[in-house]
């Protein structure tokens, strides 16, 4: 193992990629791109923040980065056109018998 690096003055550069939070919740948000009107409310309110605009067929739509989405439902509640659905992640889709 190499030497542990400690930054002088306890400083460290931003390191988002080492702290992915997408596995926190049991659900994540998914944007229905047809319904999305790109109003930006979900982007404003997402606390992570992990929603960004992308271009889709010449249309600007919101997209959730599931690497970071904690499934808090905030975007779901603020979307004015019900374009966001909360999806249960595959591994949590258990069959109940």
């Amino acid at each position, binding site marked *: 193992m190499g030497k542990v690096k400690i930054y*002088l*003055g*306890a400083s*460290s*550069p*931003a390191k988002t990629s080492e702290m992915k939070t997408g596995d926190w919740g049991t659900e994540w948000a998914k944007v229905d791109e047809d319904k999305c009107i790109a109003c930006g409310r979900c982007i404003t309110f997402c606390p992570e923040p992990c929603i960004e605009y992308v271009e889709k067929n010449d249309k600007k739509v919101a997209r959730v980065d599931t690497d970071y989405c904690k499934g808090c439902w905030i975007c779901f509640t603020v979307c004015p056109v019900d374009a966001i659905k909360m999806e249960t992640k595959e591994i949590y889709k258990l069959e109940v018998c």
Partner: protein
Amino acid sequence: MRKVVRGFYAIAYAVKLSKPNVICAYPITPQTEIVENLAEMYANGELENCEYITAESEFGAASVVLGASATGARTFTATSSQGLLLMTEVLYNAAGMRLPIVLAIANRAVSAPLSIWNDHQDSISVRDAGIIQIYVENNQEAHDMIPFAFKVAENKNVLLPFMVCVDGFKLTHAYEAVDLLNQEDVDNFLPPYNPVVSLRIDKPVAMGCYAPPPTYMEFRVALEYAMERAKKVIEDESKEWYEITGRDWGAHIKAEYCEDAEVAVIAMGSIVGMIRDVVEEMRKEGMKVGLLKIRTYRPFPAEEIRKALTNVNKVIVIERSLSIGSEPPVTLDVKSALFGHSSQEIHSVVLGLGGRDVPRTQIIKIIKEVYEGKVKPGKRYEGLKEFEEVIP
């Protein structure tokens, strides 16, 4: 320029020559006049590129200089006693963040009972914070140690706060002829501060991160290593200081007449001057006594002390503070320095707490008793009255 000045002025003037960017402090006797003098210089426009801030408390003052230092400013603060204790949480923090803040401490006893008079309990109480501590014996040394402190603290191999400890009243308020440094000499010795890490928009870093168990320990041990490295830096800079000013303060210790001494007295601060007089007088009478002045209490010069005491049989440690529930602080350090190497008799003599007068005759008596083998080694108090506790 040789001038008769009071200690607080000698300190304040040296601060000015060191060109600090941010000064922030809170008044407390006997430190007050240091910051009053700086305030006056500020009001007269004598401090260039400098902000003088009056804080709402010592805790605030230490925090202001912490923030300023983290931004890349050269910073200075000063305090005493209660003020230092109130700063303590911030000082540990500043050391951990590796901020080269310089502090002047006008040493004063701590409460209760309230006392404005001198001993070393205040600065000794923060010895474990990761702050370099130097104890000076006169106002010339106090004056010299201010630019010196900045130079050492800001050294890239060190980056630790530096505390110049000056006996309250005994030095801070005493008139003394001091060779005041000139700006050119200080500028030659002390380059502008060039921080390795600081808060800036173009290169954002996070300072004061919290460290979980896998990283915390390395940070704390790194502090210890930095303190170790400070030793060499202090030696080198002491030599340079001598070259520039012709004044040789020694580096970590100053041992005098110890090579062949039967008894050596270890002390820190202004009492050293009187002890030197006594030792020299006794030498004239043919008594083999020596003096070992500790300058840097942190980093503690264990090896230097060991070497200096090689031929000494009996050691007297003059203590100006207590570690209640154990042996006095300097004694503990001296004992651990000698342990396993030699087996001198160690006499730990606590005196002069809360400004109690230490007459010359007392020093003579202490040395003579040990020299003549009239007292057993161990801890004792000098100048202590017989007392009993009664319920009011």
